[in-house]
């Protein structure tokens, strides 16, 4: 890593000269602004930041960031970004994707990038709908949801991105409401610090095709009662009165009320994000009440590029091949002379 002083940026340094063209009121604006605010705090140089996206509303994101970026093809951003990072591990590489891009057409790359644990940051804009193609159900749309391609109701059960991701060995998973810019900025900064693939799912409201899909969790008046924002090392307490918490009953998580039935704060489970065993993290991801947000899993593990780097150094140190000539002229070679030998 570079040790030279990094100039102090402001969010404006990361805004490109391109006019932002999302629909008015879209949560994407919130995410963009949160990212532009987070980047100056990360301690990375602007020229070392790369945004790679696929296709979809969210994937226009790189055009609006004044750093390096590539708007790729549908679903392939994790693969493109993997190439960028393996080519130059010093870069801070971000993948911007949506629920269609990452869960449908790009499902394969999504699971494999997580399995490999390359140090990328993936921001998944989940609005449970296809926006850019104007309103078809996506792999995260609910059963029964009426969309342009499911006029009588969707019959395909959805993926839960966190469940799929942790199943694919994600070491870092955070989930955030689309209207929580402060938390987003904090988590983006943390994700950049984290060594390994970090996945941040944002419950992003699509004002045109799926408006209000998260209101029951994210609206200001219900948020505190319906969401549990977890923090590492702290008891998992939520509610306007901060009197509800999670307890383990057998193999199930349950909501208990502090002060009732002899429950005290000491009975409430303490969140531990840095656990190799993802069982409890999966339970938190799947919970419907409360909806768990925050950094649910943060398990530090060796990255692919660290393994590759170590292997390359080791092979280099014991190899007799320094230049290609050493290889080409090695082993079984023979000389041909103008006057052939007998």
């Amino acid at each position, binding site marked *: 890593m570079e040790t030279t002083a990094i100039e102090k940026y402001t969010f404006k340094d990361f805004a490109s000269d391109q006019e932002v063209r999302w629909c008015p009121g879209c949560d994407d604006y919130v995410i963009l602004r949160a990212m532009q605010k987070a980047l100056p705090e990360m301690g990375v140089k602007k020229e070392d930041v790369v945004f790679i996206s696929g296709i979809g509303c969210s994937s226009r994101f790189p055009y609006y960031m004044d750093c390096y970026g590539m708007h790729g093809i549908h679903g392939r951003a994790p693969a493109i970004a993997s190439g960028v990072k393996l080519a130059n591990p010093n870069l801070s590489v971000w993948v911007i994707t949506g629920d269609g891009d990452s869960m449908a057409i790009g499902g394969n790359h999504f699971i494999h990038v997580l399995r490999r644990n390359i140090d990328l940051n993936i921001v998944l804009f989940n609005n449970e709908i296809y926006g850019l193609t104007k309103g078809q159900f996506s792999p995260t749309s609910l059963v029964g949801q009426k969309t342009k391609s499911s006029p009588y109701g969707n019959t395909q059960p959805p993926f839960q991105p966190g469940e799929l991701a942790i199943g694919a060995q994600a070491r870092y998973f955070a989930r955030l409401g689309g209207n929580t810019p402060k938390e987003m900025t904090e988590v983006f900064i943390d994700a950049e610090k984290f060594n390994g693939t970090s996945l941040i799912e944002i419950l992003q409201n699509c004002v045109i095709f799926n408006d209000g899909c998260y209101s029951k969790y994210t609206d200001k008046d219900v948020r505190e009662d319906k969401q549990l924002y977890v923090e590492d090392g702290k008891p998992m307490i939520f509610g306007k009165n901060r009197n509800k918490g999670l307890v383990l009953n057998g193999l199930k998580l349950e909501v208990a009320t502090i002060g009732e039935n002899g429950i005290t704060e000491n009975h409430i489970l303490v969140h531990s994000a840095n656990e190799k065993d993802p069982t409890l993290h999966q339970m938190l991801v799947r919970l419907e009440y409360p909806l768990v947000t925050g950094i649910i899993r943060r398990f530090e593990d060796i990255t692919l590029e660290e393994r590759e780097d170590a292997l390359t150094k080791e092979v280099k140190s014991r190899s007799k091949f320094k230049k290609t000539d050493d290889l080409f002229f090695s082993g079984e070679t023979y000389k041909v002379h103008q006057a*052939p030998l007998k």
Partner: protein
Amino acid sequence: MADIKTTKKKKLQHEILDAVVIRFVGDSGDGMQFTGTQFSGTSAMFGNDIATFPNYPSEIRAPQGSLYGVSGFQVHIGSVEVSTPGDNVDLLVAMNPAGLKTNLFAVKAGHTIIVDTDAFTKKNLDKAKYETNPLEDGSLNNYRVIEVAMTSLTKAALKDVSGIDNKIITRSKNMFALGMVYWMYHRSVQHTIDFFNKKFSKEPTLIESNVKVLNAGYFYAETLELIPNVYSIAPAKLPEGTYRIIMGNTATAWGFLAAAEKSGLELFLGSYPITPATDILHELVKHKHFGVKAFQAEDEIAGIASAIGASFAGDLALTTTSGPGLALKGEALGLAMMVELPLVVVNVQRGGPSTGLPTKTEQSDLLQAMYGRNGESPVIVIAASTPANCFDFAYQACKLTLEHMTPVILLTDGYIANGSAPWKIKSVADMPEIKNNLIKEVKENWHPYDRDENTLARNWAVPGTFGLEHRIGGLEKDKVTGNVSYVPENHEYMTKIRAEKIKRVQNYIPDVKTEFANEGDLLVIGWGGTYGSLHSAVKEINKEGYKSIGFAHFNYLNPLPKNTETVLKAFKKIIVCELNSGQFAKVLRINFNGFEFLQYNKVQGLPFGNDELIQKFKQLVK
């Protein structure tokens, strides 16, 4: 080289030959590839020109003795230039009935067959669907058959060696065959003994057993009165230099290594295993000592997508595949073309369509390479034509992609990729310079789509470079800023400039050459992996006195060399020979009016045979 202990006690016929074709066949587990490789290596070191071709079943362990489980290795050695593995087999070594049955067609009457009689059991004959034993029913009367109880003789040779089991004993019989063939062709066993000493330095028993059997075969042949002839093939007059035997796929991989070193860039390969291209991946993963980053991706698309990412970040990036894989990569290749990044895509062609004939050769991906993408998305297409020049064209693909900032498709095929030949080793110091379009410092009024005025290549500003932050993508670009643009005139302008950029590559590639005749009655045209077959056919016919037949072989397919039309005009008739239904003929028709392009096509998963070509060419000039 060790002395060859030839016998002088018998009245042997000693024939001197220009060239000879030997084919070793047996079960997948009989070690035929190894036997063939050893014979080729020994002959090459002796100074012969060689060309080899392996032929093995796609089943990994096919049932023993079955017709479809036959594995073969053919080698053509010569004191003259040898450009194909050969059509007609002079010596067939058949380790079992199935091998004999499936390969007899290639042996001309009067030529020699060595068989292991121990393998001609009722069971094996049944498996090979022989109703009667061909060794007894007279069906081989037109051949010179040498019957040897190889398995028994191998066992006898090893009876005093302790610490080896039956399996090792039966597996060694290929060395008995090799020993015999060494003697027949006046070759020393030393090269193979050296190999065993090195390979099994920690397992002396294996050295002992293999060397014993090899020598036993050699001495058996010497004393066997059934062998009436020994043959000599004098060293060939190859250009002076240091050589090695190289397989096409290895040569391709090494061409990339050389280009990376010469250009000073790191090499990145994103790939997914597919026959017959996988050996390039196998080769490149070995070379971490050169800093090669070889990434086995989750699928073909991730293979090319990761390479595009690596290219964006400043590596010399490649992806390797075969026909169906190129189809999967089509969309991403369009992206690479649109964002104008350097990228080499290798397509080791195989029999198509769909899954087709994975282990067989064909040239049927030319049109896919040229046009197999949405929109108008031209790329450079070049093709290697021999196992050894896979090195040069892999290198050239890198040079073109870096200098012109556009993807390059390199076509090879299963025939040259798996074939091997002597390669006069090239040092990186002797290879042509490779420039690139990297820009490392901020310039006033800089834009990502600023172009070189000669090549039209855009500049290459990679992440990590201060002040050159920019965005690229698959949406149409503004011609200057590279920002998204829906302006109609801009789209047309960009479409034209992308085409013009490829066209201008003509100024940087060599003319197509004509061989044997520069003008005359017939021009034989070929491209890619058929060079050896076509060249030897025209050469032979030329020797017979047909002096007005010329031969032009294309390695540059898009764009075509500048002098193409001049070459076409110099001949009365033109015949385009391809292992497809006429794809290059179509390309020529699109580009050149007023010519009649005759065609000779073969779509059997097999290379051209010498005789069929000669017959066709003679017809056309009679």
